[in-house]
């Protein structure tokens, strides 16, 4: 398992557009699970509505975990996604 913490920079937080793109990205990895944790709540990156419902605002910290056979590849892609879009 690999993980990283990320402070959200986007003005609107994790809003519909990046959440949708992230869900799409996560669906590309069938057996590798990507989760997002904020506080005591954890959701899978594929759970678009639940992810938005975390209500991650600008300045909030989330923990992203990646686990599964394509761990390395998925980790790199997700990290890049956060840096580029959030």
């Amino acid at each position, binding site marked *: 398992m690999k993980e990283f913490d990320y402070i959200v920079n986007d003005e*609107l937080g994790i809003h519909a*557009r990046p959440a949708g793109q992230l869900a799409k990205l996560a669906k590309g990895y069938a057996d590798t699970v990507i989760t997002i944790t904020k506080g005591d709540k954890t959701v899978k990156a*594929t*759970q678009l*509505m*639940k992810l938005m*419902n975390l*209500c991650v*605002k600008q300045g909030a910290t989330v923990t992203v975990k990646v686990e599964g056979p394509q761990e390395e590849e998925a980790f790199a892609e997700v990290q890049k996604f956060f840096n580029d879009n959030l």
Partner: protein
Amino acid sequence: MILIQGKGVSTGVTKGKLYLFQRQDTTIHKAPAEDIGQEKARIAEAQQKSIEQLEALVEKAREEAGEESAMLFETHAMFTEDEDYVEAIMDMLEEEGCCAEYAVQTAGEQFADMFAQMDDEYMKARASDIRDVTQRILNNLLGVAEGGIDSDEPVVLAADDLAPSETLQLDKSKILGFVTQGGSGNSHTAILARTMGIPAICGVGDALKPEYNGRTAYIDGETGQVVLDPDELTLAGLQDKYQKQQEMRALLQEMKGQPDVTLDGKELMLYCNIGSPEDIAAVQANDGQGVGLFRSEFLYLAAEDYPTEEEQFQAYKAAAAAMDGKRVVIRTLDIGADKQVDYFGLNKEENPAMGLRAIRICLNRPEVFRTQLRALYRASAYGKIAIMFPMITSVWEVKECRRACTSVMAELTKEGIPFNADTEIGIMIETPASIFMAADLAKLVDFFSIGTNDLTQYTLACDRQCNDLGKFFDPHHPAVLRAIKHATDAAHEAGIWIGICGELAGDISLLPTFLAIGIDELSVSPSVVLPLRAELRKSIAKTCTLERLEG
């Protein structure tokens, strides 16, 4: 040949397939499922169909409206596929053993609520996206077409009668004309048809049979006839008329860009009546020089709850900005009478035309009024907005309206929100009381606009909705025309301008009378601007007389 005789309420000739309007019954009842597996399959099918529709919309939006709008539909498609959302629907189905519709509606509403309760304005607003997605799945389950018209080609829409909220939801690009069983020249369908410049026939009654659905019909808005399978002679006549109509339209195009002035130099302002910001396109296409009546009711009729200040502001701002400095007269809320809105919780009245309506509701409910005034003043910073109050009978009402405006302006100043402090304030002249009081009222406002539909109804004691009045309902009645003259003289005495925004304004046969009376502005359906301009430019104001005012 089948010939149906009705009353032509919007002119023009057209030919198209008759399409019987299906009333969308979306009230969903909790019914037990006969077969859970089958209900699940129905949901999966409706979900799949929704995704396909949304994907098509993504493409369409990308080509026509840009990436931002395409992304919205893409998000909707992803919501439709969302595993938790779908799981919640399926769980509901199994736990409750209910029909697919109930499961979708209930689970969908739970998800929408989850967003509505979030502590973030952006996320709260996403609740409406989820409701939209849920409604789409429901429509597919129920087999209800979007915009009420399930046809690839434009049709002649046939209905018993259409409620204002129904006409709003129609996909207007798919309508060639209207045929209704009930209704009158003043019904909303008729007004909509005239705004769109397409023919409409009402009052055909039972002669319009359900089995005509899908058959090709000719409709002639002048004679009020609907013709199926025309014989050779009739067909030739209709085709000739259609041909002439097209030629006439070409001729009218030449009127674009020409000033609104008579041969002897009397200028008139030719404005348009509109029902929503979307109608601005028709105003521009017909070269209207302003908006003389923007009915703000659409915001209230199309909603399920009071529209917010922000929603209203956006709509008014869109209209003001699109008109680019030309005057946009926005009439404040005019519900009651024939326009009912459930969430206002108004009592049912025996005689709503004389009941609690329009400005009376606003003065009774200062919060509703304040929200609209704030939106109007905020929008005034983006164009030339004028505010108009309907159904005025007394001086004190106008004073109270002005006080409400002053207090809203003070609020905005305090909040540092820009607005135009010189925004014109006017009133509708549509009650006999306002005619008698015109001289006093004129001292309190910047303009008058005569609503001839109500003025005729109240002056002649003839109900607009009543079809049997026939010759008794005479909009050309000298009493009505004298009332107009009286208000005009009072307005000019006080140095303010006066217009007509009722249906009478578009009655070309009355143009000489209005010129003689000295009316300054006529606000008409966009499709009437060019014919009226053509007539105006042939007129000589000096030779117009007041003979029609004689009894």
